[in-house]
Structure formats: C-alpha cells, structure tokens
C-alpha cells in the first residue's frame, strides 16, 4: 500500500479514470521520493512520456511524463503522471533516487524533447547525436530519416568519468572501442573503454545502433499488425514478446482467454524461455573459450525450431499470438515432437554441465566477476534472471500470476552473489523449471477454444466468411479497422525470458494504439554495465556483458 503518499499528497493529486495519480510537475520529485523512502516503492519500472497533440480528447497540456514504480515485494504497481508546461517542457530529474532513470530519462529527452532538470548527462540515447527533432512527437513524420555521417567519439562522457577517478585523457591510457561491430558485442552494443594495461579504468556504453522505430511504427498499425513487430524485440524468444503484447491488449479489453489458449501460451512461452536461455548460455560459454558447448546447447534450439515451424510456420519470428488467443491449435503429433525437444534440451544441458559445472577454469572465470548486489540490482532496474542471480526472488509468474501459473509447481532459482556464475547457473536451473512447467501443462491441457469467441475481437470462422455477408463484413472490419480497444492508459507485464517485459499502451478507442511503450527488460541492466566493468579485466568485460543477455532488438527497439 502507499498510505504515506496518499496521506501526504492527498490535496495535491487527482486520480484519473485509469487509476493513474496525476500530480503537478513541481510535486513529482517529492512524491516519488516519498513513495520510495516511506512506502517502499524501490523499483522503478519505467519512465515515458505521451504527446497528446493528436489525441481525440482534450488534455491539460500537450505532454505528460509517466512514471511506473513497484513496491518492495513487487506485487503492487503505481503509475504517476505529470503534465508539463508547453513552453518550457521541463521537469525535475529523479536520477538522484533511481539509477535506472538515467537512461530512461535520456530516452524521453531523445524521443520527445522533454528536459529533465539536474540530469547528469541529458543527451540522446537511441538516435544519433546529429539527429534533429524528436521522432515520437506526433508532428514528426514517420518516414523522415536523417543520415548520420559520423559516429560519436564519446569523449564528452569519457573525460568526466576519467576525471572522477583521477585521470586525464593525457595519462598513459589506451582507448579502445568494443563494438558496435564486435563478435562479442551481441549485436550492436558499443562499449568504449580506457585501459591501463589490461584493466578497465573507465567505460562508457553507447546503444541505439539497432534502434528501428518500433514504437513509432506501432502508431500506424492495428493491434494485430503489431504482433509481427513484437517478434523482433527479443528475437531469441519471439513468442514471449507476442504473449506480453497480446496480454496487455487483452487487459485493456477486459478479456479472459479460454483455458486451452492460456495453457498453450504457457507451453510455447516456456519453450521460448528455454531457447532464449540456451542461446545466452551457448554464446557466453563460447565467449569464455568453451566452444564445444555451443553445439551442445545450440542444437536443441534446432529441434525446437522444427516444432515451431510446424506449429507457427516460422522458425524464429513466430507471430503465434493473436489478440484474444493463439493463431492455430496444436497440430497432431505435437506432444511427440515436444517430448523429443525436451529430451534434446535435457541432453544438451547435461552434456554442457558435465563440461563446466565442476570445471576449475569456468569457476575461476565466472565467480566474483561482474558482481551486482541485491540492493544495487533493484536500484538499477534489473529484473528476471539477472535480478534473481543477485538473490532477489522476483518472478512475475509468482508475484502476479497469469495464465494459471499459480497452479503449477515450480521453484524460483536464485543466486547468492550476483556474479557471472550466478547469472549463468540461474539460467540453467530455470531451464529445468520450465521443462517441469511444460510437462505439468501438457498433463492438464484442457480442450476447447483457442481464441475468444467474440466477434469484436477474433475473426469469424472461414466457413462464415465465405458463405455469409455478415461473416465477410465482420472479417473485413476486424482486418481493416483493427480490434477496437477502449480509451485507456494501461500497463501490464509478464515474465519475459530476460525479466519484466511490459507494455504501456495509450488507446484513443480506435483500432490503432495512440502510443505504445515497451519496457524492455535489458535496457536498465545495460545502463549499469560501465560500473560492472570498471576495475575489471578486459577479458572479463566480454563475459560480464554476455551474462546479462542483452538482446539489441529489445534494447534499442
């Protein structure tokens, strides 16, 4: 509960119809401080903004900034927003309270042009530094690209960081770019380091190399058309992204899915989680030089791909969910294929573990490397396996169960130190738990519909489309106009493979979202990387980065 906040600010806030607290921008900082210090809202979920200039209903002013926070046991979430003065577009930064707000606020500046006062380094984070304008503003044309001729040298961030540690750029240091095109940079991440010998004195991270305008693209597609875009957020576990998005929209529509659809989501969702962890582990072990594990751990993915191709038509980018359910029912022989997958996964895992579990080199390379304590991890916005490795048992499948997760018997794997070793071992254990969930779900799999039978949401049967005028019209309306979602601002999340994967959606009642913001689980850990690396060796930087499982697609969107 947030009584202290309610008590202290009772004359200062209003609560809107979506349950969001609206405060004056000058009270916002103190309100969040009160929530954090007195009501134990320790976890900043996300910060975003909304541009209401084209909204169907008038608002107090053009821009508002939205903050989402979770309390100590992660069960309660609170949304706060403040409208800004259109002339100044300024608000107090909360970076002194939450480290994770640093990049989040930079992103809001980048995308909307909102200034955060007293922010330590308010510069663009996703778009390139030469970019003019703010692309998520409603008056920025979606196709207006801007050519970038030069890469940022990052010295503006490096020099103050060095100064804090007592160095100048003229000291005998070696400056080195790791990425954005580096085999161990897992896509497109760039870390710029200053080295003294092989020790990293100071590091700066730059992202945005895979920013592909997901959120802007959402604003001109219908809800179901967005599902293929969500595949490409965390492309290692596409189905979990589909589920997270559909789950949020279903929450806005107030739908309850048929039992079978929910069970299918659990089964394929957990399978996705497994293959996501597999690729993370495989890549990380390769980075350490343990190449054989790549084949042990990657090949089971191929078996799962085969199953997914049969089920969804695609190996990697499945687009298997629809608003209100799933696209197709399980095929004949699914269970057999699934058992085959599980066997391969178990075999790959035990083969890999037999090589690394008791391996001295593996232990020496991973233990006490890249340590993040529990308190730090929370303040930095870690979630999922990365947070659990630090010893915090936060798993949305337990704290806010959806899709019958409360009825499955499984454990949350937690680490004790929060080092690379824990982050990897937590993933190994989660694969085991996911296998157990899949088996339980298969045993209990109910029969019935796989999508809600609601003509405003799901498509009519093919038979009706071909044989009746109502059917054709119904089909036509849903495809062209999209599923009409009631006017609302809404946040909902699931446990993605990397942690809390949520969507904040603003709807104006039409079939196209007015605004979509993803809460990508790896954005916050990424911003914490420099501190993890500083003081360590260059070789460890690679595995520290790998152990966070940063997926550029969801990081940069």
């Amino acid at each position, binding site marked *: 509960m947030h009584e202290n906040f309610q008590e202290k600010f009772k004359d200062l806030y209003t609560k809107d119809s979506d349950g969001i607290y609206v405060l004056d921008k000058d009270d916002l900082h103190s309100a969040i401080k009160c929530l954090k210090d007195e009501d134990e809202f320790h976890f900043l979920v996300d910060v975003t903004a909304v541009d209401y200039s084209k909204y169907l209903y008038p608002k107090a002013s053009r821009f508002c900034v939205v903050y989402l926070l979770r309390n100590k046991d992660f069960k309660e979430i609170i949304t706060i927003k403040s409208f800004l003065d259109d002339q100044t577009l300024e608000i107090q930064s909360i970076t002194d309270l939450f480290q994770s707000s640093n990049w989040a606020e930079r992103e809001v500046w980048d995308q909307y042009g909102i200034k955060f006062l007293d922010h330590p380094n308010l510069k663009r984070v996703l778009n390139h530094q030469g970019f003019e304008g703010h692309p998520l503003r409603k008056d920025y044309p979606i196709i207006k690209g801007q050519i970038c001729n030069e890469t940022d040298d990052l010295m503006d961030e490096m020099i103050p960081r060095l100064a804090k540690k007592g160095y100048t750029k003229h000291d005998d240091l070696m400056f080195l770019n790791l990425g954005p095109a580096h085999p161990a940079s897992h896509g497109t991440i760039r870390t710029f380091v200053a080295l003294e010998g092989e020790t990293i004195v100071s590091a700066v991270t730059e992202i*945005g190399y895979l920013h*592909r305008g997901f959120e802007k693209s959402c604003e001109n597609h219908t809800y179901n058309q967005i599902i293929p875009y969500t595949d*490409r957020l965390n*492309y290692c576990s596409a189905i979990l992204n589909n589920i997270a998005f559909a789950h949020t929209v279903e929450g806005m529509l107030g739908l309850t899915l048929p039992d079978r659809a929910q069970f299918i989501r659990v089964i394929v969702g957990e399978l996705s989680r497994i293959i996501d962890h597999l690729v993370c582990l495989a890549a990380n072990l390769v980075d350490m030089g343990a190449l054989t594990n790549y084949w042990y751990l990657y090949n089971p993915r191929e078996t799962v791909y085969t199953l997914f191709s049969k089920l969804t038509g695609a190996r990697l980018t499945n687009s298997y969910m629809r608003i209100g359910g799933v696209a197709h029912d399980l095929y004949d022989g699914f269970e057999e294929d699934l058992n085959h997958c599980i066997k391969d996964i178990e075999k790959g895992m035990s083969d890999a573990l037999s090589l690394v579990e008791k391996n001295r080199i593996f232990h020496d390379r991973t233990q006490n490397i890249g340590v993040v304590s529990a308190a730090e991890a929370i303040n930095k916005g870690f979630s999922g396996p990365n947070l659990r490795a630090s010893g915090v048992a936060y798993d949305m499948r337990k704290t806010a169960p959806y899709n019958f997760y409360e009825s499955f018997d499984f454990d949350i794997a937690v680490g004790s130190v929060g080092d690379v070793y824990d982050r990897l071992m937590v993933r190994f254990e989660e694969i085991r738990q996911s296998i157990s969930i899949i088996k339980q779900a298969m045993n209990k799999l109910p029969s019935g519909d796989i999508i809600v039978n609601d003509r405003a949401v799901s498509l009519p049967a093919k038979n009706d489309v071909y044989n009746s005028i109502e059917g054709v019209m119904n089909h036509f309306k849903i495809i062209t106009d999209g599923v009409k979602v009631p006017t609302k601002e809404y946040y909902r999340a699931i446990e993605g493979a990397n942690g809390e994967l949520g969507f904040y959606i603003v709807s104006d009642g039409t079939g196209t979202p007015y605004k979509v913001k993803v809460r990508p689980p790896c954005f916050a850990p990424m911003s914490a990387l420099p501190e993890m690396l500083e003081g360590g060796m260059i070789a460890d930087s690679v595995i520290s980065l790998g152990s966070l499982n940063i997926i550029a697609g969801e990081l940069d969107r």
Partner: protein
Amino acid sequence: MAVGAEAIFGDSVITTKLDSAIGWARESSMWPYIFGTACCAIEFMSVASSKFDISRFGAEVVRFSPRQADLMIVAGTISYKQAPVLKRIYDQMTEPKWVISMGACACSGGFYDNYTTVQGIDSIIPVDVYVAGCPPRPEALLNALAEIQKQQLKEESILKDRVNTEFKGELDA
C-alpha cells in the same frame, strides 16, 4: 591426345586458365565477416552450427577482422546510426570482396519503413547477392553463398578489378 605441357609431363600437370585456378581456390575458401545486427544474425548462428554447417561450403572460417575476410554477410537491420560503421568496415576489407545482403531489412529496410532504418544497404555499399526472407531460412543463405561461388568460378577475372569505382553511396562524399 594431349598436347603441350600435358603431352610432355603426362598426368603430373594440368593446364588451365589462371582465372579458373584462382576462381577454384577462392570458391573453396571464402572467409566471411558477419555484420550481424539483429534477428537475421540468429539465423546465421544456425547456418554456422552443425545442422546446416556452412563448412560444407568451405566458408566456416568466420573472421571478425575485416582485414582477413573477403565475404561480408550483412545480417540484420541497418539503422542510420549504424551506417557509418558498416561503410567503414566494408572499406577496411581488402579486394577482392563480396557482399551478401541477408534478409528483408538489409535488402530494403524490410517492414521498418521509418525514420531510423536505412532503406536497403545498397544505398551505402555495393551488394552482390540479395537474400529474401524475414529472416531467410539457413538454406537460403547457403544458396546465396553458392551463388557467389558460381560467380567467382565463371565470371570473375583477375585481370578485371573487382573494385567498383562507379558505386556512389549515400555516405560517399
């Protein structure tokens, strides 16, 4: 009846054109540089792993130094922010060099028709083979590789520079 050198030395020599000999050698040992940025790069991982096994085509020596590679595989979306990096790495590769554009994004921007995505990498660097798909299946990439090998064997000549001086990309001054 053998004539020339073969008549004198028997089976111990073969005569051929220099181009064919070099083409044959190149064809069997392409060294790819993977410019992997997004989902397509995950499919490249499949191509490299044992089920699809790119080494069957002599191209398993994946180099991450552009100076040691002669085949660039651009796997994934290229944003405007990434474009100068792509060009720089392409320029760092020594001649002769080939480029495969893997996937809808690299070929045309794919379904990211928006403010941040380059609408096809051929506006930045020249491309030899385009692979359709989002992502393309591993077989499609292998097919593209075979296509380049065919070109090397049939069409390339060491007398003709592969440097494409006519190409002017958006980032070429």
